[in-house]
């Protein structure tokens, strides 16, 4: 691990640094670029959105007098004659974690200016993401065929359907958007846009390899949200 050499000398660390960074008329985020600070603030706002979804799910589940459908059975699949609880969700979890691993390595190769490896790893991430969305589409279809609706389902509390569609739908939308942006940025990296200083189509600015990390932060966040959904909605 590289020690923070340059900035550590220029600015104190720890609590002293915390106070110094936030005080007086200056930039608060010394080490983070504008892009990184902005993506973090965006992710923070997204945290609140998902936080509110999950806590409204908690509210309806705690207050209903009708038993909640058992997710372990609802999401079970019959594979080779055996009924395996929650198996599809487990596979989806492993796929998303795998995509997070490939993304983390893509960021690393991006900073090393190894554009082919970075692009290939981003494409792998996008492929994992797309298969995740595909499985989610399968899961939705299966549940809709079994009669789950936002206003009711055959197994218990009607709020189950609305929570399920809202939370997984919003998360799936995030994954889909992530896949689209991964493809766009992988193409730029592959073409060497950030080496030759090619101007972007939309902003007409020169991009930097930092965008790979920004993309990575978004993608890891999507994985992070799934960790909470998996634990609180599917396992609880």
């Amino acid at each position, binding site marked *: 691990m590289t020690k923070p050499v340059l900035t550590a000398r220029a600015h104190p660390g720890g609590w002293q640094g915390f106070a110094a960074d936030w005080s007086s008329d200056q930039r608060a985020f010394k*080490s983070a670029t504008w892009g990184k600070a902005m993506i973090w603030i965006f992710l923070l706002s997204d945290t609140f959105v998902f936080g509110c979804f999950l806590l409204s799910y908690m509210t309806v589940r705690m207050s209903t007098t009708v038993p909640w459908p058992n997710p372990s059975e609802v999401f079970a699949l019959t594979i080779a004659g055996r009924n395996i609880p929650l198996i599809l969700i487990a596979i989806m979890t492993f796929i998303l974690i795998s995509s997070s691993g490939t993304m983390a390595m893509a960021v690393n190769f991006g900073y090393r200016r190894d554009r082919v490896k970075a692009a290939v790893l981003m494409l792998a991430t996008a492929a994992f993401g797309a298969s995740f969305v595909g499985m989610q589409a399968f899961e939705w279809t299966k549940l809709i065929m*079994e009669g789950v609706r936002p206003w009711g389902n055959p197994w218990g509390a009607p709020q189950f359907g609305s929570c399920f569609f809202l939370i997984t739908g919003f998360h799936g939308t995030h994954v889909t958007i992530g896949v689209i942006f991964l493809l766009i940025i992988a193409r730029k990296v592959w073409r060497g846009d950030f080496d030759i200083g090619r101007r972007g189509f939309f902003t007409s600015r020169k991009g930097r390899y930092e965008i790979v990390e920004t993309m990575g932060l978004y993608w890891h966040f999507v994985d992070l949200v799934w960790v909470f959904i998996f634990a609180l909605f599917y396992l609880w």
Partner: protein
Amino acid sequence: MMQDSAHLEGQQHPIKLYLVVWGWLFVLSTCSYLVDYFGLRGNLRWSLILLFMMVKAGLIVAVFMHMAWERLALKYAILVPPGAVLLFVAIMAFESDYTHATRMAFFPTEGSTAQTASLGSQLVTSETGKSHLNAAEDQAEAARDNAALPGNIASSEKKETIAPALADSSRVASVQNGIAFANKTAQFKVYTVRPGDTLWKIAEREFGRGHGGKYRLIIEANKALLFGSVRIHPGQVLRIPPSDA
């Protein structure tokens, strides 16, 4: 200049670090799946699920998102505000607990749960001492006692333990059936649940295609048998009401 320092400061780590974290995420996910696979229950289940969730989230944020190498100013700006969400969760937990208690008190017929619960508690008391054999009297008492009961059956866990106990006692079930259907002369069909059936599918089969939504009628007709759990299993016998009911 600024990019260079950011570049130097945080983001050059050996690939091995990512692979190790990746491996741990797999192990932890497998652990949380096994919690469900082995059907652990109670406090052990909740604490394990939360533990694995927090460790996974911590690894992703700290290493994959490089938060561990950021300056404290950014760490606190991002990690402290979600604490407000936790406060919100606490407030809503308190609120929904109250809502649940109120519903238990005033919705005696909804989903038959409250009724089941009250019957259940009576059954428990009768088993432990007083023996009420006149179940019809029990039923009437249950209806009257509903308003007073929720305090006893506040947690859904208790309900779950009572419901199977009730299901085993065919006496109560048959009596409740008798009460539910005594004043109905409508013709009920009998249906044996097949493997792979859902209430929706049964409704489509019995009431015709496109009438799956009428599964509610089946639930209504079998309230006493299903004991509010609304889960069916192959071999179970259900009453199918006339579709125009």
